[in-house]
């Protein structure tokens, strides 16, 4: 806490009020002293010697009375100067006339403006802005709190620490090569009676932190976008409490909300009971138990299982888990990312089914072409054999040949059916070709 009285005395030279007091005191003291000196010294000395001696005594006394307390106060000021000057936080102080009465070393370094050249001026803005404008301290000295949003739109707020203080983080484009971010806070300074004496403003260069935060935020947004695109959500598992620590994205993936589930921490058993497909519960439990039981360095594991979302929809989830273990190899926590791979999995299943159907179709087609041809071939061979042997009964041969004609008709129909199926599977056959194949 800054001693407001000391700040106020930090004007150059003596306080005008003290000077006035000293003048009045001096006048009274000199008048009285001269009368007293004349009474004391005149019987022994001449008038001039008595006057000279009186002047010396009065002056010495007055000087002692006047300067003794000031020296004491100056010692306090000196300590305060040292404290403020030595503070690593760049600071300046203005009085009620907006004159700068303090400008510390840290501010000199961060702004390049020497205290000696700016103290006494009303230009603290020079440290931060390219053109004249009020600083936060100026606005607080003038009590223009209502104008704060105008000068610091959306970036100003009350300090949670000190009553009457305000703080903001802002970009100063003209500072440094690519601008600089400053966290600054200002507070009005009052004496013990509540009289406004001035204001202190602290400005800390947070450019590196802000850029790191911006980069972190950019990465977070990128991660969020990536997760959104990839239908992913992350989670954490606290091995000590056997609780999953989830988030809104995770709950969205599972078709629910934190409100519905009673918060972001969910016991393993509850999670399994509420979301894992009953046929996959054993598999998932075994994977979790295996991960918990295994010792060794940090591990990465993957598994895939089905979930039942809160809306009843069954989805396929691919889980990637990284376990963090202590020096004994025991898991202390794990982090994971769950990806909804339903479309991919269903496409795979559909493809397998399609391939299986196609294979079945091909085999069926082969059987229904190859077999009949063999049968027809065998039957015609039999007819030829009968003729060769001279065992010819016209009606029998006619019947057998008629049957083979029927069989060949059927085979032709089977070929057309096969072609139709092929055409149905392919979109790149011309209409003329389709007609040829299917008629």
């Amino acid at each position, binding site marked *: 806490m800054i001693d407001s009285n000391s700040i106020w005395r930090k004007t150059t030279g003596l306080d005008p009020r003290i000077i006035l007091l000293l003048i009045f005191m001096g006048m009274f003291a000199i008048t009285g002293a001269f009368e007293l000196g004349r009474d004391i010294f005149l019987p022994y000395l001449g008038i001039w010697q008595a006057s000279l001696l009186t002047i010396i005594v009065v002056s010495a006394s007055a000087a002692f009375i006047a300067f003794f307390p000031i020296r004491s106060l100056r010692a306090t000021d000196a300590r305060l100067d040292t404290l403020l000057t030595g503070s690593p936080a760049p600071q300046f102080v203005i009085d009620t006339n907006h004159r700068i009465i303090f400008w510390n070393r840290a501010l000199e370094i961060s702004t390049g403006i020497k205290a000696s050249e700016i103290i006494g001026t009303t230009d603290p803005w020079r440290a931060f802005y390219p053109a004249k404008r009020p600083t936060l301290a100026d606005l607080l000295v003038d009590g223009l709190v209502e104008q704060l949003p105008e000068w610091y739109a959306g970036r100003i707020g009350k300090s949670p620490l000190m009553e009457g203080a305000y703080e903001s983080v802002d970009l100063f484009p003209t500072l440094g090569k690519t601008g600089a971010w400053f966290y600054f806070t200002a507070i009005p300074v009052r004496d013990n009676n509540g009289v406004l004496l001035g204001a202190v403003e602290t400005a800390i260069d947070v450019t590196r932190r802000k850029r790191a935060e911006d980069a972190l935020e950019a990465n977070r947004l990128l991660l969020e976008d990536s997760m959104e695109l990839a239908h992913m959500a992350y989670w954490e598992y606290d091995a000590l409490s056997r609780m999953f620590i989830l988030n809104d994205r995770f709950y969205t993936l599972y078709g629910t909300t934190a409100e519905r589930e009673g918060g972001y921490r969910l016991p393993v058993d509850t999670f399994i009971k509420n979301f894992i497909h009953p046929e996959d519960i054993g598999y998932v439990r075994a994977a979790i138990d295996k991960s918990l039981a295994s010792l060794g360095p940090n591990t990465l594991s993957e598994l895939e299982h089905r979930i039942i979302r809160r809306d009843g929809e069954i989805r396929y989830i691919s889980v990637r888990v990284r376990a963090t273990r202590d020096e004994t190899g025991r898991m202390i926590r794990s982090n994971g990312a769950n990806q909804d791979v339903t479309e991919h999995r269903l496409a795979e299943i559909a493809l397998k089914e399609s391939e299986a159907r196609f294979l079945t179709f091909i*085999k*069926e087609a082969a059987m*229904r072409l190859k*077999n009949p041809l063999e049968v027809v*071939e065998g039957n015609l061979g039999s007819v030829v054999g009968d003729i060769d042997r001279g065992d010819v009964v016209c009606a029998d041969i006619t019947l057998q040949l*008629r049957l083979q004609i029927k069989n060949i008709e059927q085979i032709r129909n089977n070929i057309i059916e096969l072609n139709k199926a092929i055409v149905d599977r392919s979109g790149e056959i011309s209409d003329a070709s389709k007609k040829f194949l299917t008629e």
Partner: protein
Amino acid sequence: MAISRIEIKDEALYLIMASAAQMKEENINLIKMLLSRDYYVLVVTANQPYEILKKNYERNGIPMEKIFVVDTVTKYAMGHDHEPVPNCRFVSNPSDLTDLGIAITGILSDNKEKKISLLFDSVNAMLIYISSQNITRFIHFVTNKLRLMNFSGIFLAVEKGLDPDLLIQLTTFVDQVIDVDAKG
């Protein structure tokens, strides 16, 4: 394995695999073997018309008295009804499995007291007219019927012409698979 060496058990079902060239010959051999063991034989033919079958059997000295026939191809080939023949039922079309099932069931039901073995000739010939899926269903139906009525049955097939998956399914319906081309 030679047909004559096959030990046909009562009420048992067999799938006999033979080459296409041997199919007719095996048909004759099986009939002879069954008749020699006092079986009545119900021949379900999807390949040879009744008249041709009869002449073949007679040429090979097989009497038709103990043979029943369900002929699926004569009406189909001729395009009109065949004159009625004792011990033979003509089905209009090989793909008419309902009619075929009724014909088989009818003959079996009419001869419950006899020792009958069904000879199905052949799975491959049926593939001209119906899908393997329907053949599987139909053979399942026939084997169930035979088991319920305590009859034996033999299904002829050309192994090389069948999809292995279909073959596996067929083997589950029978008690034994016999490959007559195999040595031993």
